[in-house]
């Protein structure tokens, strides 16, 4: 009923390996709702934050807490795909709207898609698929692909392979390491031995840092180009230092992206939190915008959940990454940019794929 606050449940990792991602997402989310406070038609916003620790085992319980105990109107989360599955199990088909601000699992907007589930980030497929074409354009014929053997790792390599081999490229070797092992040195030696035209990879967080450092330490940087899904150089550049120079990645965002909204957002974020945002903050911010815009369009009355969903479906989000809309499966239709690290910054080279839509295999929406 009107007058009740709008409850936003947040299920992100605030401890453990993905803590930084969780915090960024939450900060972005809060910033969006703060900026839009005037458009909420008087609705008060209340946040309930729960730490997932990026552990899937507690995901259904926490989701149940947000759904049943706190009766949240929107639930934002998570970062980790495994956790996403646990949340989906609980929330799928319910009235409460779930917005995923990071986890890329194909299933979320694929076979398990559901009217009440949205994603403001990406599907694993999206950042990697265009990179196959990029590799071909650069003239690479033989590529060594390496990642972790888990959902996003496999989906990323598969997406790359899909476009790369379709265009006549050859994957000389496809290596899937156990997650989250970071013992890369021997693989770097193998790469040196195989001597491919380029290397394609998906790693994130600590693994990304370690891989890029090992690659450089063993002297391969500058000899064999390193391509990747954009997470290889997101939030990790400072730690990677010089080792990351020249790495080319595909992602739906870049910090220096020349979009007015991006400049605005970056400054606002910096004013609010004292540091500049990264991709995870952008995705959280867009989740916040999606909520704010929906409330705005419904004039503050979100009691009709069907209306909420159908309003949200039609939104065009003015994201720092450029405007995007939701696909039928509720995944963003967005540009993927080719970026290259220069002087510690991901510099946009080109748009690798425009308005790219995830194939949403298996989704019946």
């Amino acid at each position, binding site marked *: 009923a009107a007058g009740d606050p709008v409850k936003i449940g947040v299920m992100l990792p*605030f*401890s*453990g*390996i993905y*803590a*930084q991602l969780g*915090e960024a997402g939450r900060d972005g989310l809060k910033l969006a709702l703060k900026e839009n406070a005037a458009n909420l038609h008087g609705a008060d916003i209340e946040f309930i934050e729960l730490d997932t620790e990026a552990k899937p085992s507690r995901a259904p319980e926490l989701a149940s807490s947000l759904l049943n105990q706190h009766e949240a109107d929107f639930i934002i989360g998570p970062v980790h795909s495994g956790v996403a599955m646990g949340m989906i199990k609980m929330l799928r088909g319910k009235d409460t709207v779930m917005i995923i601000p990071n986890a890329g699992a194909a299933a979320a907007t694929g076979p398990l898609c559901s009217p009440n589930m949205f994603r403001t980030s990406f599907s694993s497929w999206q950042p990697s698929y265009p990179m196959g074409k990029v590799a071909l354009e650069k003239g690479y014929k033989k590529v060594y692909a390496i990642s972790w*053997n888990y959902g996003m790792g496999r989906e990323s390599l598969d997406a790359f392979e899909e476009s790369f081999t379709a265009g006549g490229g050859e994957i000389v070797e496809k*290596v*899937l*390491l*156990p997650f*989250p*092992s*970071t*013992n890369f*040195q*021997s*693989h*770097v*030696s*193998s790469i*040196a*031995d195989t*001597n491919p035209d380029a290397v394609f990879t998906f790693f994130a*967080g*600590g*693994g*990304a*840092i*370690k891989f890029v*450092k*090992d690659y450089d*330490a*063993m*002297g*391969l940087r500058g*000899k*064999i180009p390193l391509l990747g899904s954009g997470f290889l150089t997101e*939030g*990790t550049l*400072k*730690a*990677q*230092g*010089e080792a990351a120079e020249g790495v080319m990645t595909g992602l739906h965002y870049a910090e220096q992206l020349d979009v007015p909204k991006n400049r605005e957002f970056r400054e606002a974020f910096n004013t609010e939190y004292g540091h500049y945002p990264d991709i995870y903050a952008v995705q959280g911010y867009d989740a916040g915008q999606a909520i704010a815009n929906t409330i705005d369009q419904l004039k503050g009355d979100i009691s009709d959940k069907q209306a909420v969903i159908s309003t949200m479906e039609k939104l065009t989000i003015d994201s720092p990454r450029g405007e995007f809309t939701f696909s039928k499966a509720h995944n963003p239709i967005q540009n993927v940019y080719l970026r290259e690290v220069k002087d510690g910054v991901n510099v946009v080279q080109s748009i690798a794929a425009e308005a790219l839509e995830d194939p949403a295999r298996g989704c019946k929406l």
Partner: protein
Amino acid sequence: MSTELFFVQLINGLQYGLLLFLIASGLTLVFGVMGILNLAHGSMYMVGAYLVWYFVAVTGSFTVSAILSAVIALGLGIVIERVLIQRLYNRNHLDQVLLTIGMIFVFNSLQSILWGNDPYGVAVPDALSGSVPFTDNSSYPVYRIFAAFICIAIAAALYFVVSKTRLGMLIRAGESNREMVEALGVNIKSLYTIVFAIGVMLAAVSGIIAAPMRSIVPGMGESVLITCFVVVVIGGMGSIKGAFVGALLVGVISTFAAVLMPTMSNMIIYIFMILVLLVKPQGLFAK
């Protein structure tokens, strides 16, 4: 696999093994020799890495930072032993599990409060930043060679002290029967405080040495913890030699497994350990 690549991987494996030994060295002392089940060992490794990162950012010098961090870790070890561990010596060993798991929580949380959750890296110190030619299109970083030597030096020193000196005998005797050691006129309480603190310092030193090669991230402590225990146990409790050989074997085996059957490579050290324990239920170098 070509012979050249075989040797390259062998070197990689040995180097990884040496690093493993380094990371496990503190645990070998604290757990293997003194018999304290310290699950917070990984946290000490993490503390070392974060401290050196922090001091490098402040002072700019790796050497100064390394020394500062090691000294702080030593102090931390003394405090932990005095305030916490010491109270549990005459209790069930499992209480140590509880205590040190509590410590993991606290350290992880302090890490996040003090240093935030961003991943960090430490640059290789300038003096060691070069690399030597290795194969056709790869080279070997000097720092990693340096680290390998540090590991060997620590292994040798540890082996010497524990098995050859009177101090080492006292430490071992303390694990066997504290009361009796004290009845021989030895201040076992202070001795254990110091040795525990040295164990903590070794863990931190491994974090320091590893910092320029690895990433400094939340949860980095837990990720090495089990491997350390595996190394100590494969070698046989209390045997420095065993831990050293165990670490090298684990390093080489997991390196080859990683390239030959990558998807299995996380399992391989467990399979190896199970096999070792089935043949030698007390580890390779059990007395």
